[in-house]
């Protein structure tokens, strides 16, 4: 049986996750946004992806510190070039996994 405290926890987590996902879609999609906001939103995806990615590649540990020579970064360079050339998401994922697996073996 599921304990009620656990149910409260996951429903709470679910709500606070869902609401920020829902508000802009429900309220903004009917409205014409000011051009400045549209321009800002246009920059956000590249910013978020880069902000998620770079610390993964060049920092490690807890508390975090800079660490350059990691298989994460070394595998990222050819993976990046492959992605620029092919624009293939599936191919990039498979190649990245393979390179990382190789580098972890030798490093």
């Amino acid at each position, binding site marked *: 049986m599921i304990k009620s405290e656990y149910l409260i926890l996951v429903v709470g987590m*679910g709500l606070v996750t869902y609401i920020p996902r829902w508000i802009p879609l429900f309220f903004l999609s009917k409205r014409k946004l000011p051009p400045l906001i549209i321009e800002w939103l246009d920059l956000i995806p590249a910013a*978020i*992806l*880069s902000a998620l990615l770079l*610390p993964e590649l060049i920092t490690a540990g807890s508390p975090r510190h*800079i660490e350059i020579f990691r298989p994460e970064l070394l595998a990222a360079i050819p993976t990046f070039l492959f992605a620029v050339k092919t624009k293939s*998401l599936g191919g990039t994922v498979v190649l990245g*996994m393979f390179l990382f697996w190789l580098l972890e073996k030798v490093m």
Partner: protein
Amino acid sequence: MKHKKMKQENTKENKNTLMQGWAAVWPVCVGYVPIGIAFGVLARKAGLTPLEIGLMSLFVFAGSSQFIAVSMLSAGAAAASIILTTFIVNIRHLLMSSSLAVFLGNSDRKKLSLFAYGVTDESFAINLARFREGGWDLNRSLVVNHIANMAWVASTVIGGYGGQFIPERAFGIGYALVAMFICLLIFQIRGRKHLITAILAGVLSVIFSLIIPGNIYVVLASVLAATLMLAFKRL
């Protein structure tokens, strides 16, 4: 006769929607499965049952916050502080939904509410890239979100049952999401302003991640980078 033909065309269109959604989303599933299994294993070690694991994945559907929740649970944290942390970690989806909303004007609000449930870092980037290319719609993006969701829920439950038999480092699975982000980032860079913003956000994010505990550095760095870029352009 006419009715039958229309029905046939409808089924054909539905099939197209499914196939195109699948073609867009399968790499996301490749990324989710190993991480979902890893999450299931950890959650099991923290004392959750496979049913409880599945429930969390279904209600929350946000990987990093689930990992954090499980580590907080095993450290004995209170529900309120876990929920607050979840909120902070996932507030970045507000930005993603706002970017997607630009393409979904005048859509059915019930469908939009369903779509909102599946907005993750990965589905967001995939759907946004397709919306930009054109020929994409809410139904196709719903297929993307829900296939990704099924892959996530199923793999976390599988991890809860028997993940200890799968070695964590096999086949470079730990790198799947990183490789995916690399490619998704390239999709987003469509001009010099995106490139500069991305470099700025990456550098800021590294700096913030070193000095600010938790995951809030992603939101801070992206908001600051995009805002600075706009400010530069206006100078």
